[in-house]
């Protein structure tokens, strides 16, 4: 038999002005199972809390209903008071007499009756409450950062500087990402590499950061605080300990005509290579697909010239397993590639290039040492056309969204061109100029007003080559859509920023969701921009949507704080409001029939398959199992399960059913 205590609060006069609190307490006192009932001026005050505590002790209460304000306000207060008096905190419930009753209704019998009803519902619910214990999860205080672009670098440094360990993995041979490819940055026109490379070096030297380049995530298991990640370290064909980074091998390698990824195909590299001079680590890798030895079985010139004998042709990929407590994904984005714009002849005409290629042309470390020269014949273009929205805002090509960064970098490109090519003419075809950001609009105005960039509002229909010129057919929509034809020497497409190839597979490995464009999905569009809906996994930078550098960095720092917050405790404590699949005695084991439809209802991928095996190792029962580390307690699976095999603590079938019954039937 329950012994429930009911504590009705006046909240000064906030409740008692319209509700007859004494009557509520008196009525409640008569319910079955209610051992004690009282009303009091301020239940949340110390004397009020003491009233509850002493009643628990003296009357041996098994449950408590506090009828006062919203549980969203004081539930923690009263649960704590109960716990201090030795009652399991989850045996305490609150009836919301203030926000849901006294404040919203006039004084009168009906209002008091409602208050009585609200108390009764919870008295009946408490009868079905169970003692629950908070879930404690240990935390491994090491973070895994995936992706070594500016976002990954920032997140790694920020986490490492709070004193926690970081493992940073990067797919390419060097960290640096897209930012290392950029020439100057908007809106300040400071040199990208000048501000980035010191950070890259800091990462390499930081005692708390372990850097693995040429490495990818193989698989991930576990949950917040307790992930196990397998990392594939691709073979560099090199003993990094022996290599001094002298670079002799790269100068002697005979395979010299491989398009350089770093230079976006505008320059060449060797088969054993360091992507760029400031690379971190500044040690080469062998690209086996293009290496003469791996293709033909002989060469080994690098091995011959290496003064330290560091080359390892038979080195294999290594799979290593690490334990981490949190993960920051910073895998970035990519730009749309040729054949996507047949009407612009992209891929067909060498002088139609992407914005990223233009960055390489404009970069002092690029293939033209910073001079703007056409890829086809190395001439300096006298007329250049920039096309905004090349792929973006184009549902017909599958990209309805705005890539966000292009308006700014186009202005920058046009400006750089005007600075570098005196007397040159530049044109920008645009539809809208989206320059929201500190000093951004001013920057665009500078390009137009001071540098004389011609902005034409309209989208180009096609580009074709004639007599060595690129004929650009557009229209000026601000002049009754008058046709505009420009004979250009070079055309730069602001190609859409899109999710990385393989983003989908990575998301599946990480059990996080992604949007229709394969960008990773944040947990809440406004309030949880760096969280994913898998606890303990965070996002930074352009893997979530196209982002510029300041935004990526801000996001990375945000994610780092989330990680640091998580690592500030030795154990995670979570409310035990989670779903549980019932267990029954063998041979039934559970009423769950293992249809596993619940798996797709769960927003958190918290439901797994559990197999029960007999002595011979044969599966005799397959059933669902909720991972308590991942479950967030929404109960979506509970309402779905046909056999009622899943229940959720704190909102059980019995509790909710009882509430409805109690509400509508007076006892």
């Amino acid at each position, binding site marked *: 038999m329950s012994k429930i205590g009911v504590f009705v609060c006046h909240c000064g006069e906030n409740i008692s002005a319209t509700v007859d609190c004494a009557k509520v307490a008196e009525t409640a006192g008569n319910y079955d199972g209610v051992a004690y009932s009282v009303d009091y001026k301020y239940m949340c005050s110390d004397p009020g809390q003491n009233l509850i505590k002493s009643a628990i002790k003296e009357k041996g209460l098994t449950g408590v209903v506090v009828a006062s304000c919203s549980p969203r306000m004081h539930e923690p207060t009263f649960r704590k008071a109960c716990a201090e008096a030795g009652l399991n905190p989850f045996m305490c419930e609150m009836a919301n007499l203030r926000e849901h009753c006294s404040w919203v209704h006039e004084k009168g019998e009906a209002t008091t009756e409602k208050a009585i009803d609200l108390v009764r519902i919870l008295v009946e619910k408490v009868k079905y409450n169970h003692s629950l214990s908070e879930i404690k999860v240990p935390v491994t205080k090491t973070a895994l950062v995936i992706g070594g672009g500016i976002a990954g670098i920032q997140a790694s440094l920020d986490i490492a500087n709070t004193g926690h360990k970081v493992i940073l993995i990067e797919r390419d041979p060097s960290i640096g990402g897209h930012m290392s490819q950029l020439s100057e940055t908007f809106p300040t026109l400071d040199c990208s590499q000048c501000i980035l490379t010191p950070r890259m070096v800091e990462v390499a030297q930081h005692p708390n950061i372990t850097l693995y380049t040429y490495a990818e995530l193989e698989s991930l298991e576990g949950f917040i605080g307790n992930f196990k990640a397998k990392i594939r370290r691709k073979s560099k064909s090199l003993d990094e300990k022996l290599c001094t980074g002298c670079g002799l091998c790269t100068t002697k390698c005979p395979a010299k005509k491989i398009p350089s990824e770093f230079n976006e195909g505008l320059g060449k590299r060797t088969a054993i290579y360091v992507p760029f001079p400031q690379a971190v680590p500044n040690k080469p890798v062998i690209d086996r697909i293009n290496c003469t030895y791996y293709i033909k079985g002989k060469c080994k010139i690098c091995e011959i010239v290496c003064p330290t004998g560091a080359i390892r042709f038979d080195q294999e990929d290594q799979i290593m397993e690490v334990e981490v407590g949190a993960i920051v994904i910073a895998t970035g984005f990519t730009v749309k590639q040729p054949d996507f714009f047949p009407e612009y002849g992209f891929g067909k005409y060498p002088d139609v290039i992407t914005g990223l290629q233009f960055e390489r042309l404009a970069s002092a470390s690029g293939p033209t040492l910073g001079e703007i020269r056409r890829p086809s014949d190395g001439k300096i273009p006298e007329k250049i056309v920039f096309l905004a929205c090349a792929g973006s805002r184009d549902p017909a090509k599958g990209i309805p969204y705005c890539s966000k960064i292009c308006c700014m970098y186009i202005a920058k490109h046009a400006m750089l061109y005007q600075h570098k090519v005196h007397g040159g003419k530049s044109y920008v075809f645009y539809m809208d100029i989206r320059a929201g950001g500190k000093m951004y609009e001013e920057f665009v105005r500078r390009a137009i007003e001071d540098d004389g960039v011609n902005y034409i509002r309209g989208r180009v229909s096609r580009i074709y080559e004639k007599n060595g010129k690129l004929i650009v057919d557009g229209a000026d929509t601000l002049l009754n859509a008058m046709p505009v034809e420009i004979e250009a020497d070079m055309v730069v497409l602001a190609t859409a920023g899109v999710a990385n190839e393989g983003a989908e597979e990575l998301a599946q490995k990480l059990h996080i969701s992604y949007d229709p464009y394969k960008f990773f999905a944040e947990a809440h569009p406004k309030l949880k921009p760096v969280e994913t809906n898998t606890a303990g996994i965070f996002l930074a930078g352009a893997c979530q949507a196209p982002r510029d550098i300041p935004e990526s960095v801000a996001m990375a720092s945000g994610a780092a704080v989330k990680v640091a917050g998580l690592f500030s405790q030795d154990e995670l404590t979570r409310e035990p409001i989670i779903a549980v699949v019932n267990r029954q005695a063998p041979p039934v084991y559970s*009423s769950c029939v293992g249809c596993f*439809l619940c798996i797709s*209802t769960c927003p958190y991928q918290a439901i797994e398959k559990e197999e029960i095996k007999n002595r011979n190792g044969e599966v005799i029962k397959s059933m669902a199992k909720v991972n308590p580390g991942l479950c967030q307690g929404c109960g979506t699976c509970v309402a779905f399960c046909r*056999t009622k095999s899943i229940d959720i603590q704190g909102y059980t079938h019995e509790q909710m059913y*009882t509430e409805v019954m109690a509400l509508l039937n007076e006892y």
Partner: protein
Amino acid sequence: MDDLIKRAKELIETSAVKVVIGYEQGTGNKTRALFVEKSEDADKLIFDSRCVQNLAAYVTKKEVKEKGKMAIAATLPVMRSIIQLASEFQVNDNNLLVLGITPESKLIEFGNLVEVETFVHQYTIEIDARNKEMLDKLAKMTQAERWKFWIDELAPCFKCYACRAACPMCYCHQCTVDFNQPQWIPVPSHELGNLEWHIMRAIHLTGRCIDCDACYNACPLSIPINLLTKKMLEDAKEHFGGYQPALKGDHLMSTYKPDDKENFIH
């Protein structure tokens, strides 16, 4: 169906399967399920237009499953049920071989369930004209008339659960109706309990029922409970692009689309 008999014999004789599920002559003009475990029993196998019972209901039964690998003479509705069951992990290629009977009464043996699925997907599930007419008729009624229709139709139901037993998708060991903490469905067979039981059943079958009418055929009182699932099938088509059982992919009711359309949430 001589080729069915011949193939059943081979399967049993070579121990490729332990049991072949098919139809045999029953009492009167009816047919019933036959479980061939010995090759001589295969001669009793028949197939004709009377064979409408959904044999897929047996493949999840413990007693049948325990015999070992099963083969099943499967008409189109049975194959659909099997695909749905496979998507719910109740059968798989290791424990079930499908001897398909096409709508033209031709025997096709499928190598695996993927092939069955490909075959099934050539056809869409269509509600027959008579029932379609009935649905239209009900749609035209007022809400009060519909209420009366169903209360009257369901009044004689005495919860014999023949519908549940005949349904291949009702394979749960513990049905909600058997759940008593709390007692979701009132035990006695009164109008309300009957209505709630059938509403619940229809919801549980949404996105799973392949419209075989086994429930209706099994009902001793011929209550048109299959109209409820047919209505759900129609709604699925109207709101979510229709339902077709599939081995992989999204289940109708355990998934959603962010742009699901409705007009009643304000």
